[in-house]
């Protein structure tokens, strides 16, 4: 009898513990940015299972939280952070699945009357702003220069990049989420019906180039990707260019596909 009572008590507390286990989410990029917005969507999608946000200033702090947390914690992680050997690399067991992918879009300022495909391809002094990432700017630059050798690329941190088009010092910028700016072309299938990278330079190694996110975490007892994709929060998201990525593959297949792809981009970019 005593054993039965103990067993029931343990089962009761285990059930309670499970029912109340919240999932915390780590924020590790600037507020309001794409990564931050993605984490907010995950939080909304989790509903009652969402615990709290843990604010960190970069991927290293986020990694520490993931490594030291005693409770379930997850976050949205840029794929290139896992490429090569970097201090932010996570243990393989923390990589849950792939999350989203969005092609890079070439955008321009609505007031810029000169902006056109013709100008991009044949202009004599074309300036394109790229996000300041060693990993992504190299292949983007290569694609643009192969498209038009007269293109000059300029790397911007996030905040100055926001105002660069409006200042008129660049003609175009390349981003995975174009926001309100009109889109001229995209390096992949897109929602805008604009010309793709393959149309511009068929067979170019970077004609299909996108920005991916992974889902990472510890102690996660649900299929986080499916939970998000089946939620209302996902249906109502603003960053609609980001779509579910490789969801028909197994976790190992997803991750190896991403790593092979990143490696290919990196090698070609060099």
């Amino acid at each position: 009898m005593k054993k039965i009572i103990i067993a029931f008590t343990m089962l009761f507390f285990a059930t309670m513990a499970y029912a109340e286990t919240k999932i915390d989410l780590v924020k590790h990029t600037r507020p309001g940015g794409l990564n931050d917005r993605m984490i907010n969507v995950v939080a909304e999608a989790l509903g009652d299972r969402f615990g709290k946000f843990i604010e960190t200033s970069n991927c290293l702090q986020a990694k520490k939280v993931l490594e030291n947390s005693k409770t379930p914690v997850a976050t949205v992680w840029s794929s290139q952070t896992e490429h090569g050997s970097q201090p932010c690399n996570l243990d393989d067991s923390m990589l849950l699945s792939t999350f989203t992918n969005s092609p890079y879009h070439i955008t321009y300022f609505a007031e810029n009357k000169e902006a056109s495909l013709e100008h991009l391809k044949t202009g004599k002094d074309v300036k394109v702003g790229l996000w300041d990432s060693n990993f992504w700017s190299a292949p983007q630059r290569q694609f643009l220069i192969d498209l038009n050798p007269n293109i000059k690329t300029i790397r911007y941190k996030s905040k100055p990049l926001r105002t660069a088009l409006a200042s008129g010092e660049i003609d175009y910028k390349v981003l995975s989420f174009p926001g309100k700016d009109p889109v001229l072309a995209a390096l992949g299938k897109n929602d805008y019906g604009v010309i793709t990278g393959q149309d511009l330079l068929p067979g170019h190694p970077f004609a299909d180039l996108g920005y991916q996110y992974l889902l990472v975490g510890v102690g996660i007892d649900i299929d986080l990707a499916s939970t998000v994709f089946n939620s209302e929060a996902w249906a109502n998201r603003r960053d609609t260019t980001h779509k579910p990525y490789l969801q028909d593959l197994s976790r190992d297949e997803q991750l190896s596909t991403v790593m092979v792809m990143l490696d290919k981009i990196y090698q070609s970019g060099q």
Partner: protein
Amino acid sequence: METGIVFTAGILCGMMSGILPGVGSLVVMTLAFPFLMTLDPVNILIFYVTLISIDQFFNGITAIVFGMPGSSGAIPSSIEGHAIFRRGDGGNAIMYSAIGSYFASIFGVTLMVCLLPVLWTVYGIWTTTIQAGLFTFAVTMIMLVARNKLIFNVMLFALGSVLARIGWDESTTSSFLTFDMDILYTGIPILPVMSMLFVLPMLLATTRGNFNFPGVSIKGYLESARNMGKYAITLIRSSFLGAVGGFVPGLTYGFSSVLSYTIERWSRKRKGKYSLGDTNCLIASESSNNAGAFTQLIPLLFLGIPITTSEAMIYHILEARGLPVSIEWFSQTFTTVTIFFLASATIGLFLSAKYVNVLKILNGIKISYVYVAIMTFLLISIYTTGQLQYAGMQHIIIALMLAPIGLMLTRFDTTPLVIGYILHHPLFDSWERMVELYW
């Protein structure tokens, strides 16, 4: 009803972010995120403008009375204001800076209203060249006006720049001076730098005497307002510079303050009128802050471009809730935002006067005891703000590592070091972009 609650919450949060060092508007916005998600969109903007407006008034008081800059924009006020305070003239310092701030708030609003028809073109001239020019100008001025020899100022600036660069850079995937030490990979946070390399040397420079604060009064405010005429040129110049500085992405009114202060100090020095604890310089930095606090909203309201992380957060909340984040919508809210900005500035003026008089209870206490309390408070702030990222002890260790440098710099003006730390990234990034753009 909701607007009233939001306005009150904005005032309380502004007081908190102004009084407590390290708790800037961004921290408050992050903490208030769940609350903001539930608000009417116009009320989100009202909350933000109230928060930053009130923050300016209280931030100035903390800087003047305790020498603690709550944010980078309050550094000039700490230098000049606290020196005035130590002369026993703290009441006047606070009243002049508050009246100056209030004037600048109105100036900022009036300037923007007058420029409304052409505001959309503002970023047509806001190029990397202009930004790099402004940063370079501000840095050069600070080197010229700081109280040390020029060569030493350059060395201090370089030291600040090196501190700012330490850590792992995610975009370039490279590390700088981390020596493979875990604690250094995440970089040197701003609060330990400001506390140990700016506040500590400044406080240690004079530790004799007692806390002596005569307080402020309505009569004093009115008299300060009447006397403002003799500071008119300073006030107009710094309000204008503050308004311009507010457009600098990422730095906004923090840069406004540094820019106006350095120009004022250079101008006073050139006329042979400058000495530490200069009221003109204090008014210049405090008023430019407030003008910039308003103009920083313009890119968001008229171009739909958020230029600070707090604004990016607001933008995201509006987007996430499926609200019409169009330039038309932002422009329609301009009048409402302006009214609440001015209302909060008026309330800030009076509330800060009420708050500051409470500090009279410290009168008579040895200033060295107050300074020990300030440094203890700063250490607690360093721990608690660090702990928000599970790194409280790391931040304390970094602060303690910096403390010996601060002690060595007691006899010096460490402003170039702190400015080097704050402006390193925008300055060198803009130079690099200039090279990429034009060479």
